[in-house]
Each structure stands twice: as C-alpha cells, then as structure tokens.
C-alpha cells in the first residue's frame, strides 16, 4: 500500500486585514484577511517548517527524497530542496528536487513521490510545498494571495491515506503567470479564466478519475481542491455534482488567501484533520492543466494526525499593524538592507553547525554546547567532544528587546535559550508578542531568513513562542 504517512499545514503567523489594503488605495472596504510571511520568512523557511513537522528529528534518517515545490522560491538558480533537506537533517543520500513553474507544482511533487515509492525507487519521500507569492500593489489579486506551506510524506508503511488513482490533463492555458523579469504575479481576471481554464481543466481531470474508479460524487467524503478565488471552487463542485457545503474543502482562499502550490495540499490536510477510516478524498490541483488524486483513508490516521492541524495553523495569528509594514516585510519597497558577508566557504565549513544545528557533547562531563567546539567549555579537555544534534525546543534563560540594532523589524528581541536535552543558544526571537518574550518562557526554534549577505540569502535559526 502506497500513500500518505504524514501531513502538516503551516501558515505564517502574520495576517494582513484586507481593509488595510483598501484603505491604502481608497478602494471599497473588503472583508477578511490574508496570511503574510513575516520579514524573515519565505518559501524555503515555510517548507522547512512543514518538513520538520512531517519528519521530526527521530524520523529524519529514514527519508530518502525531498521534493520542494514553489512558484516563489528565493533563488532563481540554486536548488532550495537541498537547503530544506539540510535544515531537516536528512541524510546526504536523499534525492532532492525542486518543482516549480505553476501552482500545480505541489501536486506534481506529490505525484512524483507516489510514483517513486510505487516503483520501489524510493521508500520515504518528503513533499514540502510552499508559496509566498507577491501581487502588484493595487492589483485585483493583491488581497487574494496568501502565504502558506503544506507538507506530506509518501511511503508504504503506516499509511494514513492510500493513493488509489490519479488523473491528469495538460493544456496550455495562461491564467496566472510571471515572466522571468517580473516580480509580481499576473492574472487574467475573472470569469473567462475560471470557466475555460480552471473549471474546464480540473473538472475534466476529476470526472476522468471518478469514471475510472466507477465512483459517484456522493461516495466521496471530501473534495479537496485548489480554488483561485472563493467562488470558483464552489461553482466547480456544483458543476461536478458535489454538495459544496457538505463535501467541498477549499479552505485557504477564504481564510488566508489563495496559497499557490500549497493550496490543494492544504485542502487535503484540512480534509484529513477531520476524516475517518474508509473515507474517500479527491484532491484537485490546477495550472496549465490539472491533476486529480483519489485517496482512501486508513485506520492508521488517528495515530498520524498532523502536529500542526489546519485549524491550529489558521488560528495562531497576529495582526500586521499596517499595509506599509507588509510592503517592507515582503520587499515590495526596495529598502537598503545591509547584511554581513557569509562566504560560500564559511557556509560549507559550518553547514552541520549552522543549518543542521549540531553542537558538541563532552563525553567526559556530558556538557552539551554550541557552537561546535574542540575543547569542552566546562572541563576544558580536548579530544572528548563529539558532534551532538540539538533539540529544537527550550526555555528562555535571559533576553533583551533591542531597539537600537539594525534590523528590518523593530524592536528585535534576542534570547539566550537553554535547549531541552542540553545546550545553550543565543538567537533572535520572531513571530512574537511582548508577553511572549521573557525569562522562563518556552520557545521553539524555527529556520528563518536572517539577512542577505555575501550576495545571497543567509538562513539561520531563530526562537519563536511555542504555538
């Protein structure tokens, strides 16, 4: 049996009220909000969040492939999957690949994972789909695009939802696009694209899937589909003979904004959160054609529920104070943001320490320390220390909230964190409220974009309040 063995949703904590956008441009009031990646988040860091949730430290060694999907990767040339795999401390032998080019890429990665495991070429594939797409200021889709990530693991043991079948349609149809020199996603508006692109392509794939399996819409517990706007998914479900109120799961677009490659996988995650054994789930992804996937939930699901459920991911939120902050955090405003040089040599030398997050443990006195050292900080002996993987939870030992230090977001809390299982680290704090920074408070470590230095993006760990 091949299928999903783990799943998680990640939504950045910040929300931009659509009214703030409306106020900025003098357009009519708009209800709801969109999820916005924090200033230190991007598709890579969000993919790492779901990667770590799906393949925690105790299971990372088993994963033998990581497929990253995004249309908004932080690099145009450079694989992102390799960074996510390293931060998740996956083995070096794991195959890594990036899937991109279309909001269907998340499903493409998922299908590739399924095929690899079915073929016996891979045993345990981690899928990390994340998007933080930018819409042009004052464009129709500015209040529509949300940022989020979804993670899945594909395997053949402890399967919580078996992949039964899939159907695909490929068609050249330009609905959402971005040329290689554009910063903002373009969209051909409204009914034409939804009717002739979305509904026609995805409808065709889902009909083909149901026909091949001789299933009727009423047999399906959940229709989990990408939807370009709040209406299109409902119209499609009705058109296919589903009851949108009872069966449709298309939650991103109405709660956090259309989440790109993560969108259909978030719909799947939301469906799995509430599914019971035996449920049929149809997942639908769209973009230059469509893919539809048929799953059947097993009795393994209750044991493998998401660490980050969709509901929890959506509810854990902080409001962004202003539209201007959104422009700054997402680099719509081209601000000077100086960083220190991290050379390729430094990155190479310290990869295990800085990205895989290993410290040292003294075999003589058991002291766990960071950064990696040759001489124990406590017993001062050399030759007794070995590399030690640090845990990513801990407690704030002391802190400050710095208003002076140069940073995109002010003020900047810095914390000294005593990690569970040993080791003390000194980190920036992110995604915080004032009352969440103080001595004795529990935090988790999160992989974030620290700065741009040495001509590329520099990632490192930060602390965030436990969610």
């Amino acid at each position, binding site marked *: 049996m091949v299928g999903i063995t783990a799943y998680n949703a990640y939504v950045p904590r910040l929300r931009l009220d659509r009214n703030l956008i409306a106020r900025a441009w003098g357009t009519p009031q708009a209800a709801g909000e969109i999820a916005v990646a924090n200033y230190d988040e991007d598709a890579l860091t969000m993919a790492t969040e779901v990667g770590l949730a799906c393949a925690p430290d105790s299971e990372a060694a088993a994963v033998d492939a990581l497929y990253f999907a995004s249309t908004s990767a932080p690099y145009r040339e450079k694989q992102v999957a390799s960074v996510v795999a390293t931060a998740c401390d996956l083995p070096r032998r794991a195959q890594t690949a990036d899937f991109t080019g279309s909001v269907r890429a998340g499903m493409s990665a998922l299908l590739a994972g399924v095929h690899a495991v079915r073929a016996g070429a891979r045993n345990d594939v981690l899928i990390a789909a994340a998007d933080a797409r930018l819409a042009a200021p004052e464009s129709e889709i500015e209040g529509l695009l949300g940022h989020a990530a979804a993670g899945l693991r594909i395997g053949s043991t402890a399967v919580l939802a078996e992949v039964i079948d899939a159907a695909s349609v490929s068609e050249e149809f330009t609905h959402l696009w971005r040329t290689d020199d554009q910063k903002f996603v373009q969209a051909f508006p409204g009914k034409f694209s939804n009717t002739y692109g979305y509904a026609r392509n995805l409808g065709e794939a889902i009909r083909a899937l149901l026909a091949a399996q001789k299933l009727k819409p009423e047999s399906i517990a959940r229709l989990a589909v990408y939807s370009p706007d709040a209406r299109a998914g409902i119209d499609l479900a009705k058109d296919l003979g589903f009851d949108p109120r009872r069966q449709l799961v298309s939650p991103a677009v109405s709660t956090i904004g259309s989440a790109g490659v993560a969108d259909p996988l978030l719909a799947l995650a939301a469906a799995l959160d509430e599914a019971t054994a035996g449920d049929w789930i149809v997942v639908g992804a769209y973009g230059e054609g469509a893919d539809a996937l048929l799953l059947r939930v097993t009795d393994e699901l209750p044991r493998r529920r998401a660490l980050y459920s969709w509901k929890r991911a959506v509810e854990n939120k902080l409001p962004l104070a202003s539209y201007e902050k959104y422009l700054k955090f997402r680099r719509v405003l081209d601000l000077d943001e100086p*960083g*220190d*040089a*991290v050379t390729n040599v*430094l990155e190479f030398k*310290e990869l295990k320490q*800085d990205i895989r997050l290993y410290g040292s443990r003294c075999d003589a006195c058991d*002291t*766990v*320390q*960071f*950064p990696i050292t040759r001489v124990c*900080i*406590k017993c001062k002996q050399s030759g007794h220390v070995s590399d030690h993987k640090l845990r990513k939870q801990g407690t704030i*030992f*002391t*802190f*400050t*909230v*710095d*208003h*002076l*230090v*140069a*940073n995109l977001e002010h*003020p*900047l809390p*810095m914390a*000294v964190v*005593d990690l569970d299982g*040993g*080791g*003390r*680290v*000194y*980190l*920036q704090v992110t995604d915080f409220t004032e009352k969440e920074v103080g*001595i004795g408070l529990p935090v988790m470590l999160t992989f974030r974009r*620290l*700065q741009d*230095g*040495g001509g590329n993006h*520099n990632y*490192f760990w930060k602390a965030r309040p436990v969610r």
Partner: protein
Amino acid sequence: MKDQVAVIGVGCTKFGDRFETSYEELICEAAFDAYADAGITSEDIQAAYLGTYLPGPSGGKAAVSLGDALRLYDRPITRVENYCATGTDAFRNGCLAIASGAYDIVLVLGAEKLKDRGGRGLPRLGHPLLAKGNSAPGLFALAANRYMHTFKIGREMLAKVAVKNHYNGARNPKAHLRMEVTEEKVLNAPIIAWPFGLFDCCPTTDGAAAAIICRADLAKRFRSDYVLVKGFGLAVTSGRPYFDPTFDYLGFRSTQMAAQQAYKMAGISPKDVSFAEVHDCFTWTEITNTEDLGFCPKGQGGALAAEGRTSLSGDIPINPSGGLKSFGHPIGASGVRMIYECVKQLQGQGGERQVKNPQLGLAHNVGGPGAVSCVIILGHN
C-alpha cells in the same frame, strides 16, 4: 611588581563630539598634556603603547598612527587591543615593560575617534550568523535582565547610578555630558535595549588620554607627588558567554579574577580601596562591577548606590569623574582616562569632584560581553 612603576604625568583631552578634531590631533592633545604634566619632552620617551580598539577612517590602524601623530620615530611602539579593556591593558603592558628593565620611561596612550564613523559609532562585530542581532547594549542587557530577575530589582535601581554619575560628570570640565539628570528623566527616556533606556547607556565619544610612567626609583627626579602602581590584573573569559551553559549572567568572572590578581599584587583587600573608576558602560554594569570588585556582596550593588555609599561623599566613591556614563567612552581611551582620574584624585587635584583623603584608587574595565577585564590599583608613594 608592587611599587616598581610610577606615574609621573597624565594628560587627557576634552571628551565629547570632537567633530572638528582628528584622531591624530586627539593623540597630540593628550600626549603633550602628559608631557607637560611630567615635565618631559618626547625625546625622553623610550617606548610607547597605544591602546585603540577600532581601526577607523581617520587612523588607529597600527601603532604607526601614534608614531606619526607625535613624530615619535625610531622607538618601539606597540598597539594594544582588548575590547573595552584596551586602555587599561595598554597601561599594564607599559608597566611590564618598565618592570622588565627594558625601558626607564614609557608613554601609554589611549585614543578613539568613534564619531568619525557616523551612525551609531560602533560597527557590528562577530560571526555573521551566530552574532547577528547583537549590540553592545543588547549584550549587557541580557545579563542585566537575568540579574534583575534573580535579585528582584527594578529599573529605578539602575537609574540611581545614572543620576550619581551625571552629578559627578557635571562637575568635570573634560566630561562629555555635563548635565545632571533626575531619576524620572532616566526612567522616562526612550528604551535602547530593555531594560536600558537612553540614560542607562554611555554615549559614543571621541577622546584620548595619556600617562607617562617610569621606574619608581627615578620618579622623584620628575615630581614629588608621583603615584605608584600597586597592583594590576587581567583575565579573559569566553567571548561568547551567551552560548556558555555554565554562565549564570549575574556578574563577570573576568572582573572577579582580574581584581583578585590586582589585590594580591598590591597586598590589599577591597575595603582598603578609597575610590574606584569602574566600567559603567551601562548603569547595571556599574552595579555588578562593584560586587565583582568586592565592594559589597553579590546582589547588593544596587543598594550600595541607592544608599549613597558610592557618591562623592560616600565611603566608597565610584566614578568621581562621572564615569563612562557622563565622561564618555572612547573605547581605547577610557582605561587610560581612568588612570588619569585616579592620579588626579590621589594628587588632590580633583577639584569639585575631589574625594576625601584618598589613599588607593582603582581603575577597572570590562570589555566585550564580559569577556575581558583589567584592574589597576594606584596609590601614594
């Protein structure tokens, strides 16, 4: 080492925003002030030690900048750099050179030109990832918050240090910030790095200070009221204490160890010290330093200031000069400037800020995140 080295002259520039003055000019001001005080010329200098921390746009890249400024060529000149203990460490190195018998008369000079750097004065230092987000106030604030949490003291206690040091500095014509402040003003100032507000932090300052030292047995040729070096100590601890799981953040071991070395050399205990110039880059730093130097038990440094015992008329006056808080903190210059203050006080030339009948003065720097500390004890001949 006790009583082998004498200070026969000291000099100091006006500290402050010296926008119209170059690094080299500051060096000259301090050096010629010290020459005059000692009654010597540059021809008498056999070796020199330059304490300077930040190679800046206007000089300080090596000992050469001291040689060029003073036209002090053909003699050994060494640059010393050891975080904020740079000045006192340069002095310590000068003492070692005299005591070794290599030289009879040595110039020690500390200089810094922070204002030429623009912006906040200090560049960001350290590992681009592991130290990202740190600042000098932020690093000391980490310790202050843990200390205040443990000993249950509030910002009011810190503010009392600022009030005292501004009071002293207002009486010092060479100080950078010559105004008194109220506790209310300190508490209501904008926050720099919690718990430090603007008036909990020393300013970034330009300045230079100098000392002429010689073999003690030669000192009376120059003046009768020379001052003797009684003891010194220097200790380093981790430059990354924030990663050290054994560090309690309640004080600085480097200060404790450097003080012990100095007291042992001088053959005294902390209660013998008449007054001290203590590193007060932040108000809390003075509180913890008075404890680490042994003037009161751990946790009671705040009360020491609050009870007025560290004021000019108290039993252990701390920072009669105004301290870094009010006098300013041009990093490499500060330690030598403290020597200057100690010598002037011991010679009874403290003016409005003169402490009563001092016998022993102590100068102390702590630098980096508590990573290095230097203590110098000076006394009457």
